[in-house]
């Protein structure tokens, strides 16, 4: 039997993965995605029967950080093997082919798997001037996305850029960059934001797609609820210090050394939905707040433009103080005018006495 024809169960057995390890993996994914424990055997069964899933991963206006996060964070585990089980037919940074050969690989995969392939997108898509600011092989990424989306079973936007436009869309957004779901509206789309996104979220999403044939339940921003349901603040191990009123006032004071809450230093944890606080990065080694820096809210739309990473969340966005000075001047003018009118009225009533 050809390697391509094997089911996932057969492939894992071929690679020496025991059923016990596979079930443990399924239980882990089910638990991270809040899938009931009773569903685990059915999920394992369905997953074992899954056939190789074709996927095309396109890199548009991006920095490759998302790909670094996804490919560098895994030890050789079941997750890794399942990722290997994707038939990744195109990813320009990972594949050996280039130029016409690479483009042919996309065309072939599209033709053979029309309506079945997963489209994974990394990076924002510029809209200004017909998308001319981001082009590969003579085709704008705007046209490329439209073409590829047509034959996709579902689209996964990997990272904040593909989800909401990210840094490409940050003010003044010279290229008119947007996320995938602002262009494609007739396909199931899942956003996995983060700068970079968490690899475990991709594992969960991919496993769920293989097992159930559909994308997981999402929130209003199309993010999988299982991973983006809570805020960083809700799950942060430093939350207790917030409640006690113990805060670090600078990055090298006693509070910082004691690991107190970073709210005063601009932590955006209370308004950021992500699973960093529970899953952490680098196989659970650490995450930004554990290493002493506040959350910058990288999985939220427009996080670059929220007036600085070090400004406390409760501080307003002032714009300019000139408006307030003008308001005070207007107040003085109105007050003086009111007083003149009142004096006139008083004089009229009292007859000037």
């Amino acid at each position, binding site marked *: 039997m050809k390697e391509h024809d094997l089911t996932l169960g057969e492939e894992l057995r071929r690679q020496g993965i025991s059923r016990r390890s596979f079930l443990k993996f399924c239980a882990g994914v089910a638990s991270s995605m809040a899938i009931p424990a009773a569903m685990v055997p059915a999920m394992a069964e369905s997953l074992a029967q899954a056939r190789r899933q074709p996927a095309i991963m396109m890199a548009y206006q991006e920095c490759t950080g998302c790909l670094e996060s996804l490919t560098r964070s895994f030890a050789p585990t079941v997750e890794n093997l399942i990722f290997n089980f994707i038939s990744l037919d195109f990813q320009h940074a990972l594949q050996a082919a280039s130029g016409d050969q690479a483009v042919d690989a996309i065309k072939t995969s599209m033709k053979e798997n029309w309506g079945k392939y997963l489209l994974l997108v990394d990076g924002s898509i510029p809209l200004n001037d017909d998308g001319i600011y981001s082009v590969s092989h003579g085709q704008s990424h705007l046209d490329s996305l439209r073409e590829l989306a047509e034959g996709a079973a579902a689209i996964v936007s990997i990272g904040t850029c593909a989800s909401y436009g990210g840094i490409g869309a940050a003010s003044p957004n010279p290229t008119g960059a947007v996320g995938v779901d602002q262009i494609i509206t007739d396909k199931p789309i899942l956003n996995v934001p983060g700068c970079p996104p968490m690899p475990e979220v991709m594992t969960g999403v991919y496993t769920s797609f293989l097992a159930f044939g559909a994308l997981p339940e999402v929130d209003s921003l199309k993010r999988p609820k299982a991973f983006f349901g809570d805020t960083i603040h809700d799950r942060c191990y430093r939350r207790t210090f917030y409640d006690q009123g113990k805060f670090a006032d600078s990055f090298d004071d006693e509070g910082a050394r004691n690991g107190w809450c970073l709210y005063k230093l601009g932590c955006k944890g209370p*308004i950021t939905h992500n699973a960093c606080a529970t899953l952490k990065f680098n196989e659970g080694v650490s995450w930004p707040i554990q290493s002493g820096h506040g959350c910058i809210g990288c999985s939220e739309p427009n996080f670059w433009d929220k007036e600085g990473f070090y400004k406390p969340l*409760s501080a*307003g966005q002032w714009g300019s103080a000139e408006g307030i000075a003008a*308001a005070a001047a207007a107040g003085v003018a109105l007050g003086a005018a009111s007083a003149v009118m009142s004096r006139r009225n008083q004089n009229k009533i009292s007859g000037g006495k």
Partner: protein
Amino acid sequence: MTLLDFARGPAMQIAIIIFVVGIVWRLVGVWALPKKKDLSEPRQKGAWVGGLKGLFVHAWPYKPFVPKVGAQYIIGYIIHLGLFIVLIFGTPHMLFFADIVGFTWWTLPGGVITAVAVVTTLALFVALIRRLVNPVHRLISNFDDYATWFVTTAPFVTGLMTTMNMWPDYETGLAIHLLSVWLLLIYFPFGKLMHSFWFVVSRYTTGSRFARRGGMA
């Protein structure tokens, strides 16, 4: 733009501009009015001692009136002190002001602020019930009284709901809390909340006027 971005940005800027215009307008408008003429020879020239005394004498009711209005004063003090503590010593609030004034100060633990806010909110509801139940209070209450109560109570209720995570999501709660505060700022100069500025002025003026007539000194 999300609701929170709107609340933290344009809504805040508009509210503060209306607040500043309104406050300065009213202060200048009143202070530029002619002073009341003395109808008899003033007993004291400046009468500032009487003015200062007036500030404190009127901070508590005249003894014979205590049984009748003492509770009202106590409820008033709870509301005002609670408002002051929550506003100045709540960490997120302090950080809001610190962003304007450029320095920070000591704050109270979140639990204490929550407890103070709960007591203050209860006192605000007691004040409203007393106003509605007492026929005299009800008779002399107008729209301004109820609007003032509403815009003062709303930030407490929305703030507590945000702290206790009672909204479908935190950001919406925070945005609604901020918007409720901006509503208070917008209403502030044009209603009875202006007493925050006038109470010192009016008590001083009354005290000094009485002193010039021969009392209070």
